[in-house]
């Protein structure tokens, strides 16, 4: 998934599994790049939950109204990658930074 940059689709898959689970009829390991979150079984709350996780773990700010307009895993991952400086891949956020990110 090089085209997605340093934050890969597999990273996103891990977050999807961890914070929202997987619908029985969906194989997350298949090519899901351009399938909408809705078709993958994730409602808007699930997308907000993923966005919050990304924000807390990567420090990338994803406002709620923006998260709602990122329809597919590819769109979400690209949004993250554009904002993810290579040297800041996995910062450990402090409570202050997390509060600021809100």
């Amino acid at each position, binding site marked *: 998934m090089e085209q997605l940059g340093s934050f890969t689709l597999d990273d996103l898959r891990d977050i999807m599994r961890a914070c929202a689970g997987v*619908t029985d009829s969906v194989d997350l390991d298949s090519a899901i790049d351009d399938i909408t979150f809705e078709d993958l079984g994730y409602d808007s709350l699930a997308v907000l939950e993923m966005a*919050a996780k990304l924000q807390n773990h990567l420090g990338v700010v994803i406002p709620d109204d923006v998260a709602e307009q990122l329809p597919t895993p590819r769109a979400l991952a690209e949004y993250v990658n554009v904002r993810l400086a290579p040297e800041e891949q996995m910062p450990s956020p402090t409570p202050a930074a997390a509060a600021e990110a809100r």
Partner: protein
Amino acid sequence: MTRRAVVTGIGVTAPNGLGTEAYWAATLEGRSGIGPISRFDAAGYPVRVGGEVSDFTASDHVPSRLIPQTDNWTHLGLTAAAWALEDAAADPTAFPEYEMAVVTASSSGGTEFGQREIERLWSKGPSWVGAYQSIAWFYAATTGQISIRHGMRGSCGVICAEQAGALDAAGQARQLIRTGTRLVVTGGADASLCPYGVTAQYSNGRLSEGADPSRAYLPFDVGAAGYVPGEGGAMLVVENASDALARSAPVIYGEIAGYASTFDPRPGSGREPGLRRAMDLALSDAELAAGDVDVVFADAAGVPELDLQEATAISAVFGPSGVPVTAPKTMTGRLYAGGGALDLASALLAIRDGVIPPTAGVTELAPGCDIDLVRGAPREARVRTAMVLARGYGGFNAAIVVKQTS
């Protein structure tokens, strides 16, 4: 022809048995699910004994998408509901979606989930509180998730009346059946054995501080000193009798023949508590006499004053030692929203098997508790009609009469 509400399916998630038959076998054998609280380190708490559903793994029973967005209480409720539908051989896709409903009871809501999120709030900040907190904690969550999972879009609801809630929910289910709904999932569950939940419960002053699991909860006994909190509950499938027969439902456990709920007068008024009136009203609602009742499943508060009130009410309706009384919840603890539902399940199983499950632990009845409490071993008896009683903290009383269908 009058529409009659009958129970066609039972699903149980109880501290002493996962699944209806496991629970029932344990209950008849007198096997208790009460033990030291293991979910958290309770050593520093005044309450150290509880009824935990310890052999339950959510991922074995609940779809993966639902687990992160729901509390353990909802996991237990979803599981019991699926089992009840399976037991009833009722495939929800075969029913019109607006003719199925879900009415459950809830008492604590998703406290364990909520505690986790509050810990994140305090330790890491607001952005770490998960989006699912918004839907996981609240009382209607279990009803809503069962409704969504099984496509039941009729008149759904949740009733919060502490331990009395599930009887009120079953009464509401009966009302829905009478007014045309084809199938209702009803019952309740609770799971609040986390520090936050236990602390909140402790504030009512009724929890047992006993450390010996076999002696901590002794309703009607001279040694009664509070109750043990438990988790879990039961779900029932309720249908209109003739519809259930028409679709050849495999089992009809019994009919919800009478139901009433009352509210206590204000504390200190000197007036009689509302339990006896609920019993009388439920009997007249069922068009039955006290002598028709073969067993009473007691509320069994485990608090001397409340035990005496209940024993007095039972004696007033049935005469001193006038009816067998039992409290199998001595093997699970009080399950709050799940309690009335589990007692209803037990009453229906007592009808099915002609046996009254025992009350565990009680050895010597307290003065004034002149009841025929079934103790030590199950009692074989023809059970055609059973009454279930429940009282919820705050003044709630409910009584249900279930009877064998011909």
